[in-house]
């Protein structure tokens, strides 16, 4: 018998909300299909041309026409509102305490960079029941990709040159298939991998570089592996990737870059104004630019400032010059600098910095 597969597993709370919306939409589709198809079939039979049957002259009916304009409009507005609510839950409402992972896509593979500075390829390791925020970009000079986890009902394009963000909180431990969903050339369909959701103990072990058992697939994704295992007559060796532990944490690395790249000459980390503004407590705050625009200093703003400072000049610094750094810093360096600037929040940090 052919195996057509089933409805995909919902592995996050947001995915469950998505499913409710989807069942509602299926209901609407079935309902309106019937509203059209049933009369269509009934009329086709009842009013088929035959001897003695005469058509009736009817040209319009205002009440009816208003009715079938107004009722669908109302239903559409309900659909729209529900869609917006689910979108907010699915994409926007990342909790502030979310663990952050930097995602870098290249043709054709994925690199995930964690807060402690290590990286993994094509497997994203996360703890269960903990919100995870993804900050994603594609390698320099690369094309657009898209990160799609069906079990999370989650998708976001990964665009070179900008950061796109999204988030999830996985409830079911195991391996969850992910795909690249923006066409990117010959390797597009093999640019796939898994989000590995670990139980708390496993997560701690993995974090410290210990070996753990790879958890099972959840929903779609395991079949090719099982087929391989079966055809080879033994457990195929799927090694757990342990990330390099020799790396410095992202923040430490950012601090080092701040010094080594010479940013420190113009930007302090303790609130004192130099040639440029201090980095202390700026992340997430609003900034007024010389052309009057008000922006929030998020990842994209900082990135833009480093790569093309002339395009967004901070008010009050019109006469100072910041040298552009395009191409001189790698994506991983940019991640580190941003993480560092982000870490300089408020006075306690400032104190620690001045003490050092």
């Amino acid at each position, binding site marked *: 018998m052919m*195996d057509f597969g089933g*409805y995909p597993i919902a592995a996050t709370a947001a995915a469950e909300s998505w499913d409710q919306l989807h069942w509602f939409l299926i209901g609407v589709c079935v309902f309106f299909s019937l509203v059209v198809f049933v009369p269509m079939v009934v*009329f086709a039979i009842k009013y088929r041309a035959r001897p003695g049957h005469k058509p009736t*002259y*009817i040209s319009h009916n205002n009440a009816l026409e208003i009715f079938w304009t107004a009722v669908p409009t109302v239903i*559409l507005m309900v659909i729209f509102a529900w869609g917006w609510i689910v979108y907010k839950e699915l994409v926007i409402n990342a909790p502030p305490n979310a663990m952050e992972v930097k995602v870098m896509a290249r043709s054709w593979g994925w690199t995930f960079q964690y807060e402690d500075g290590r990286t993994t390829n094509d497997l994203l390791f996360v703890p269960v029941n903990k919100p995870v925020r993804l900050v994603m970009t594609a390698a320099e000079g690369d094309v657009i990709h898209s990160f799609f986890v069906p079990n999370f009902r989650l998708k976001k394009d990964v665009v070179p040159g900008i950061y796109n963000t999204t988030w999830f909180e996985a409830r079911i431990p195991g391996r969850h298939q992910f795909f690249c969903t923006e*066409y990117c*050339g010959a390797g597009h369909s093999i640019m796939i991998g898994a989000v590995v959701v670990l139980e708390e103990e496993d997560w701690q072990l993995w974090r410290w570089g210990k070996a753990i058992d790879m958890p099972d697939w959840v929903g779609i994704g395991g079949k090719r592996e099982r087929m391989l295992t079966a055809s080879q007559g033994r457990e195929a060796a799927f090694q757990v990737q342990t990330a390099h532990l020799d790396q410095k944490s992202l923040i430490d690395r950012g601090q080092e870059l701040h010094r080594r790249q010479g940013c420190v000459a113009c930007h302090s980390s303790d609130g004192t104004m130099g040639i440029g503004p201090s980095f202390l407590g700026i992340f997430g705050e609003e900034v007024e630019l010389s052309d009057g625009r008000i922006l929030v200093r998020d990842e994209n703003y900082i990135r833009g400032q480093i790569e*093309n400072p002339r395009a967004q000049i901070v008010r009050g610094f019109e006469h100072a010059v910041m040298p552009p750094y395009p191409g001189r810093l790698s994506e991983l360096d940019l991640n580190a600098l941003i993480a560092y600037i982000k870490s300089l929040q408020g006075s306690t940090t400032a104190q620690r910095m001045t003490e050092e």
Partner: protein
Amino acid sequence: MHHSPEGTTYLNYPKGLMSWLVTLDHKRIGMMYLASVLFFFFVGGVFALTIRLELFTPEQNLLTADQYNQAFTYHGVIMVFLVIIPMIPAAIGNFVLPLMLGAKDVAFPRMNLASYYIFVAASVMAVATMFFGGVDTGWTFYTPYSTQTQTATTLMLCAAFVAGFSSIFTGLNFMATVHKLRAPGQGWGQLPLFVWAIYATSVIQVLATPVLGLTLALVALERVAGVGIFDPALGGDPVLFQHFFWFYSHPAVYIMILPAMGVINEVIPVFSRKPIFGYKAMAAAIFGIALVAFAVWGHHMFTSGQTALVNMLFSLITMFVAVPTGIKVFSWIATMYKGSIHFDAPMIYAFAFLFVFVIGGLTGVVLATLGADIHFHDTYYVVAHFHYVMVGGTLFGFMAGLHYWWPKFFGKMFNSFLAKLSAVLILIGFNVTFFPQFILGIQGMPRRYWSYIPEFTALNQLSTIGSFVIALGFFLALGYLTHSFFFGKKAGSNPWRALTLEWESESPPPLENFRFDPVVTHGPYEFKGERV
């Protein structure tokens, strides 16, 4: 006024190959478009079957990844630019529109011929790319992939750019024709709804196509001269391309579907022997759709990183496309109510259209729903949706029109039984091909995948089988239509007993369309007091 000799038709007077190649007659130009479009439909169809064969198993069957990427690119480019867009307006519309207005030709016959040869030039360029390494960008030409890939993309961009002019020329011409060449007594309220639909389509063609042309020209410039507009490596913004592209290509969806709706507007009243239900609302709905079409392009970019507010607005506005679309569907059904329904081939296609188009439209609402689209975007759900609209809608509308006006085109009838059989085959094959793709989309299979995880095998195989049933249906149609062309029974001037002007002329019409001066004395659908 010069009259063609009694007993001659546009097909045999004037005579000679040259008289066809330089003809200014809208009917001949229409038929040349028809032949070209059908040829490219065949080519695009072969690519489609190749794609489906490759997807029969998760592993490589007959194409490498690169070849597969080219196959779906050619399938898309050919079907969109060389088939679906010109299929109804330029082929059928060219023939029928002036006749419906009682005119002798379109307003600018030379421009009409120019539009055809521009179309031919564009087609030649598109086909030529196959001999210069092929194109693998997908019909959407997304940057920066399209600015970086080492294939004949530049030539293909030029082809699409050139094809745009043919579309603009046709649009301008039809608008002028509708304004200036209506028969005496034919006010705007007496226009057949097919004319309304073609008119609205022309407006979109004229307003939106230049944006696509300029955008593609910019991509070509970026490839050739390294101007940094879209490629971030050159300081450009790749998402800007998506905005420009969809600003044309969403309205283009309506360039494709409105003419099909126009055909259905003609067929349903004639075969129900009843006036179209709610003429005014129907005409208004056509323009409602055309208007809203310009403000919804962002619904293709919900996952691109567009801000939440922009996403919300595009989702909201897109919902409003469904309202006039609903009005049209409900009115078609109401037209059948208490009618006297004749099940000739055009009507069978109208039923097929309704069935498939409703599913396509409703799943469009699903995709317009912001939250829902986050999962469905760029999966097979989208592929299924737009095939339900484009194939189910436009192609079935075209087939309805082709069968409806075939007796007018060639003065011959076709085998009615075989026509219905082929319609049913195509309808069944279509649903077997594309319904499984909705399920694949729900399960998460991304589009444009050369290989897929084995979980998706069964549904893909079903889909492949369906595609060959469609092919069978079309080969059957090719058979009985060819037979009719040579040996069909004479049709007479009005075999369907329709009331629009084109049926008052002979079949096939003479060079100057009418041997008398047509005057409009009744509405296009006044089947009042008629006996069966």
